């Protein structure tokens, strides 16, 4: 057991050595290493930035505001006290924050005021407009998903003729968001593929420039695994550095657009602030970079290392 743990320690130590050795090699050519890492960084920052913007749009569209009031049209000929009682009943529901009863006369008055069709309305034999209850859902208890259940519940009430929610703009926005999400996903996939190829090609060049060294190592008894290891760690470093670059790029981009965005949103809803997801992205971007880095290196190593044999 003691021997095993000792060997394991030696194994880890060797890996650490190769890891630092690979980093040292990147350091020997700072400019080209930096350029490769930057390319990777930009390729990862682009979809990540779009993702952040989309998440923010989703946050906005998930918020309830005045536009999502529900208008409940009552049946013709409902008495005012009956309508007011109904409005008070609805107000006691947990998902409702407020209700306003508006008699048919008040509705007509409002319509007259808004439309300016005084003469025409006077010519009507009787008021064609129904009484309404304007319902404001409680935004803490109702989400855009659960609102349809609420609508059905209102519709099922006695003496309710029709329930209407001006949700169409919200649903359109949500459809657009879904489309954008899919688009960003595809873009991310394509850019990830390009990162994979960039790293693969960089490692391929590194292998080619070290052909004679690889031959010597094979001659003195190096296993493929031993020869492969520094190249995989090179891919690892490119990936993790690229991921960190992507994160920094993103923070810079966000800080550049956050002022105009906050200015824009303050005109609609004062509650909104731009979400940055900095911690989440600091975890995710270097992780994805690392995976792509090792993956790209693995592709290159698998294809090219076997062809280099001592002659």
């Amino acid at each position, binding site marked *: 057991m003691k021997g095993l743990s000792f060997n394991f320690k*030696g*194994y880890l*130590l*060797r890996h650490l050595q190769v890891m630092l050795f690979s980093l040292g090699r990147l350091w020997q050519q700072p400019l080209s290493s930096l350029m490769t890492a930057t390319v990777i960084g930009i390729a990862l920052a682009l979809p990540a930035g779009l993702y952040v913007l989309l998440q923010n749009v989703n946050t906005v569209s998930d918020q309830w505001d005045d536009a999502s009031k529900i208008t409940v049209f009552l049946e013709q000929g409902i008495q005012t006290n009956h309508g007011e009682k109904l409005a008070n009943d609805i107000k006691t529901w947990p998902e409702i924050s407020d209700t306003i009863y508006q008699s048919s006369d008040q509705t007509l008055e409002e319509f007259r005021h808004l439309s300016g069709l005084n003469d025409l309305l006077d010519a009507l034999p009787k008021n064609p407009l129904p009484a309404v209850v304007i319902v404001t859902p409680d935004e803490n208890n109702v989400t855009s998903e659960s609102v349809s259940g609420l609508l059905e519940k209102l519709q099922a009430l006695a003496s309710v003729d029709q329930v209407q929610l001006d949700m169409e703009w919200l649903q359109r926005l949500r459809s657009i968001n879904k489309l954008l999400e899919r688009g960003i996903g595809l873009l991310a996939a394509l850019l990830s593929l390009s990162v994979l190829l960039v790293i693969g090609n960089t490692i391929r060049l590194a292998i080619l420039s070290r052909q*004679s*060294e690889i*031959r*010597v*190592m*094979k*001659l*003195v*008894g*190096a*296993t*493929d695994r*031993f020869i492969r290891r520094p190249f995989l760690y090179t891919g690892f470093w490119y990936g993790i550095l690229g991921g960190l670059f992507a994160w920094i790029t993103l923070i810079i981009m966000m800080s550049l657009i956050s002022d105009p965005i906050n200015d824009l949103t303050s005109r609609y809803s004062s509650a909104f602030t731009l979400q940055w997801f900095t911690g989440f992205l600091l975890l995710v971007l270097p992780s994805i970079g690392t995976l792509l880095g090792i993956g790209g290196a693995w592709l290159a190593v698998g294809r090219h290392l076997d062809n280099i*044999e*001592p*002659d």
Partner: protein
Amino acid sequence: MIQFTDVYKRYQDRHEALSGLSFHLNKGEMAFLTGHSGAGKSTLLKLIALIERSTHGQVLVNQQNLTRISKRKIPYYRRQIGLVFQDHNLLHDRTVFDNVALPLIIEGENHREVGRRVRASLDKVGLLSKERSLPIALSGGEQQRVGIARAVVSRPPILLADEPTGNLDPDLSRDIMNLFEQFNQVGVTVFIATHDLELISTLPYRQIALHQGRLAQQAAQ
């Protein structure tokens, strides 16, 4: 230690480098492989180091049948053989110490043991003071001695050398041969391909001469 039985090597261009070659090298023996360039010397060494495989016939090295060694096992097989080349094959971006340490690093030897054995090996070839130099800063003879130090650092039972004195003047060549003799004296089987007949004529070791891929003579002196 090294036994060839009716060995043929035909390259893809149908050129026959070795034709029906048979010979035997004893454990602890030192021998020279001679012949004109193109006689098959390099091919023969490559077969022993498993850089090439024979087309026909059997090669036994240290009781292992080389045709039975799979590609994956080749690295472990090669660790039993120290190789010395005419052009040294050193890594030019690493110090003398790191070059010599390479076989031990590959075997996963621990840090302290690596340092101890690399220095012992460099001491043996007289280059202990140059351990921090880069190979480029050394003379041809010194580079060749670094190559030898690397070949023996993991104490392989067999030492193969392909024209180790090819680029050296007679005095340096004699020094190098002297080194090989010292390793032979501690039990290493040494097999050296060379065309420097003048140099080896003064040395009391067997010569295996190749002519067009066959044994030209087999004379023990």
